[in-house]
């Protein structure tokens, strides 16, 4: 029987339809080349003085300027502002957005009524499916001078303010909106890992006299440590990528001092302002640092927890 199989397999291997596999790769390959590789190569405009109408992407017919744009970004006042704002928002997001799903999953795991648990869980995913525009629209109208938030705060004697125009409020509005939208969905991963923990572990811990808090601390938490480590590495790599999607909808010129990030800056100066080479340089600078950060945190994570992306 095995002989038979082997023979048949060889027979099929020798069939000459291997070229079909390559034809099957064409559709995706064409799109990957067009929309991933050409833009990747097109980053060379960061070292050129590209103007609309110049050939793109091209090595000749465009003026090469070396690192001029990188230097002018680093020397400009926008460098410090966009960097600090980006890192501030990312760290706040890490502090709240990264921890909330973990705490939420650990908390909900302690709910014993399965239906109630399922209900809260399902509700928590819902905001993930609401579009960013709608979420931002809701935030903007709730924060209006005669909006919901001010109405509620006035019950406690707080005088109304138009929070969205104050730079000191912006990071909190941005972070809260982000966390509200994503914490439930981000917790799925932790839920599923927790549900995979061997119940025998809890059983034996209980026999040893561990209370719920101790069980959570010594069984549940260590079991999801691996996922936490991997998520943390991925988040660190994203530290210069704030949520431009949301920021562009919420920010305004009066809050630029805290709200203008690398992403929004590239959009405003590049797409709207037409300084393509300059902003391509800013973008390249940002992704190089992002990659380095991923690399470093991955090494640290590997050393500390034994887990990492690679």
């Amino acid at each position, binding site marked *: 029987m095995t002989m038979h199989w082997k023979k048949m*397999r060889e027979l*099929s*291997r020798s069939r000459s339809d291997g070229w079909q*596999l390559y034809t*099957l*790769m064409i*559709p*995706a390959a064409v*799109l*990957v080349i*067009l*929309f*991933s590789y*050409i*833009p*990747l190569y*097109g980053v060379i*405009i960061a070292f050129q003085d*590209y103007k*609309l109408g110049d050939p*793109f*992407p091209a090595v000749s017919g465009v003026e090469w300027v070396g690192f001029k744009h990188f230097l002018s970004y680093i020397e400009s006042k926008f460098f410090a502002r966009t960097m600090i704002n980006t890192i501030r928002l990312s760290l706040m997001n890490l502090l709240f957005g990264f921890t909330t799903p973990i705490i939420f999953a650990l*908390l909900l795991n*302690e*709910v*014993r*009524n399965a239906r109630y648990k399922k209900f809260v869980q*399902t*509700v*928590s*995913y*819902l*905001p993930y*499916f*609401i*579009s960013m*525009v*709608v979420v931002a629209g*809701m935030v903007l*109208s*709730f924060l*209006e001078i*005669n909006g*919901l938030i001010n109405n509620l705060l006035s019950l406690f004697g707080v005088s109304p303010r138009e929070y969205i125009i104050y730079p000191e409020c912006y990071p909190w509005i941005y972070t809260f909106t982000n966390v*509200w939208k994503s914490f439930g969905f981000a917790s*799925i*991963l932790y839920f*599923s890992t927790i549900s995979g923990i061997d119940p025998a572990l809890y059983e034996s811990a209980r026999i040893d006299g561990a*209370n*719920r808090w101790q069980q959570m601390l010594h069984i549940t938490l260590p079991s999801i440590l691996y996922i936490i480590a991997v998520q943390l590495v991925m988040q660190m790599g994203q530290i210069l990528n704030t949520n*431009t*999607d949301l920021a*562009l909808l919420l920010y305004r010129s009066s809050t630029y001092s805290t709200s203008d990030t690398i992403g929004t800056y*590239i*959009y405003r100066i*590049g*797409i709207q302002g037409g300084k393509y080479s300059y*902003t391509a340089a800013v*973008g390249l600078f940002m*992704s190089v640092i992002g990659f380095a950060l991923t690399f470093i945190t991955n090494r640290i994570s590997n050393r500390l927890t034994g887990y990492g992306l690679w």
Partner: protein
Amino acid sequence: MKKNRNAIREGSRFADAAIYFIAAIVAFITLYPLYYVLILSLSEPEIAATMRVYWFPKGLYWGGYEKIFEDVRLWISYRNTLIYAGVEAVGMLFTCCTFAYALSWKKLRGRSWINAFILIPMYFSGGIIPLFLLMINFGLYNTPWALILPGCYSIWYIILVRSYFSSIPETLREAARIDGANHYQTLWSIYLPISKPILAVIALYTIVGVWNSWYHPALFLTDTNLQPLQLYLRRVLVEQTISFTEDFASAEMLVAYQEEKISNNQLKYTVIIVSTLPMIVAYPFFQRYFIKGVMLGSLKE
């Protein structure tokens, strides 16, 4: 021993109450804003404008809905979104399945090169500016293709489908080949029928992604007749395209204008409901696929 156990239980009762309470607050914070928008959309416009409604709509006013259903621009953008979502979902399934199928054969020559070819763009990207210039220089800018073509592939989904395909037992695949099926037939009649779960996951992720995205459409589409729903929403909700600086010849006109403004203000909430309702109604049915997708995505090769 028994006494000890009881002690834990006693302590737990209070903890239980606290946990249930916190969970209830979380659910409330998540649901209430949406419910709030719903009651605002149904309240009298003057009341909705000051947001002095908390639990139930004040008055029952359908005017907002009547007005919004007459707005042609809403329906054009709605239609556009449906077209983009449908086309991109089909395109995404097509490119992912074909490419992943080829990769799932270990004997494919140059397989490691091809893997590198699709992995490199996952770690390095040119960013938004080169993509934008590409659209302009290739004549795609302000055409539906600028949105559709990049939306028809995803390296991440290719990897997901590939790992799913690779889990198909070797014997099953070989059996089809021995029966004389070529690669196209094997993909179509062996692979696809048993891969329905992952195909559903990818189609749904794509559709929800298209439905909710506004950034790429805003970059590439300036023609309002081509713009999807989210850009219509952005005009109404964020930019609030009603101008406040017009001159008024008479007091009556000013009053009329202000009434108009108030009811337009309410339209924001109506529009949110009209645009989000399909998603919320469909949500209980598709959410399990999303959870499945998260689990698949967390698998490491």
